[in-house]
């Protein structure tokens, strides 16, 4: 059972959308990541205040032919993977202020 509802882009990264993909570079170790089309949609919508299920419903299911439960499972795998690399912050509360309850990879 996931213990987060909100996702936000880390401040310690540099990112740029290139076509349907997004490049993200970790500022801590200069590691490069390339996000595919769906991950890029989630990334762009990860503002810290929009719940992940709302992102999935409005940005993924509305745009792609995919069942909501499958889309949600895929989205969770994506955001947890990005959080493991320190690119995204996950929280059970809106991430409008630094220091709120959140999970970020070391």
């Amino acid at each position: 059972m996931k213990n987060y509802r909100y996702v936000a882009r880390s401040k310690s990264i540099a990112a740029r959308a290139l076509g349907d993909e997004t490049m993200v570079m970790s500022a801590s170790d200069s590691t490069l990541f390339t996000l595919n089309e769906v991950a890029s949609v989630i990334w762009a919508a990860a503002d810290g205040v929009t719940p992940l299920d709302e992102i999935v419903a409005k940005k993924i299911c509305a745009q792609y032919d995919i069942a909501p439960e499958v889309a949600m499972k895929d989205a969770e795998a994506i955001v947890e993977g990005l959080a493991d690399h320190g690119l995204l912050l996950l929280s059970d509360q809106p991430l409008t202020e630094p220091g709120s309850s959140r999970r970020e990879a070391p």
Partner: protein
Amino acid sequence: MPGVTAVMQGSSVVVAIGGLPIRLRCDDPDFLRSIEERYAGYVSSSQSARFDFEIELAPAGTLSRDEDVRVTWDSGRWLMERGDFRAEWNPSTARGRIQQTLNPYSLDSVLRIVHTLLLAREGGFLLHASSAIRNGRAFLFSGVSGAGKTTMARLAPPDAALLTDEISYVTRQEGRYAAVGTPFFGELARAGENLQAPIEALYLLAKGPENKIEPITGTDAVCGLLGNILFFARDPEFVNLVFNTACDFAARIPVRRLTFAPDTSVWELIV
């Protein structure tokens, strides 16, 4: 512009790479003479310099053999360290100090680091690449060690002006990218010509049975470029600067994969 005369003034010599004059002071006249010889073609006859570095020579064996470069920002100074040198540089006072062994390549490394830091703020970078000017346009050939940078330089036709066989100097001037000659050389063991020209294309090198050019776009182009940019400081601000510069460069300059057989015919494709 180039065409400078090598002149040593007292206990210092001014080396201007990429048009940026840096004065190097040292009490040892023999070492200064070696600097003048090492950077021939890039030694300025002008007294003026943007930055001053005092070089202190350490006895052989007093520094470590550590090969890792560390560049950190601390209390308004850049600290640069490797086994064979320790250096600090305060951009605000425009002064720095270098402690190194009697080895011109230590100074080479410090200068490369200083230029990467300065270029990052101006939208430029140093790139693992050979480069040459042909018909007024610069071509860059980038890759890791063994990819063929020096080979491309050796195969260059007589009408090409070689800028470097190892480290290309990329500047951004009025929104356009230009390549500038550097004294930083690889296996060719020869400094590049002190010239500059707008960049026509960046080729990412690969060796193969026949010559072939393929366009590279989007994230592949940026990844290919970023993988070869010299970058030492892990400071988040500088990571952002270099990342954004790489994205901008790849959006403006054609990036291509150049697979080549090592013979002069490859240059027939470079137009």
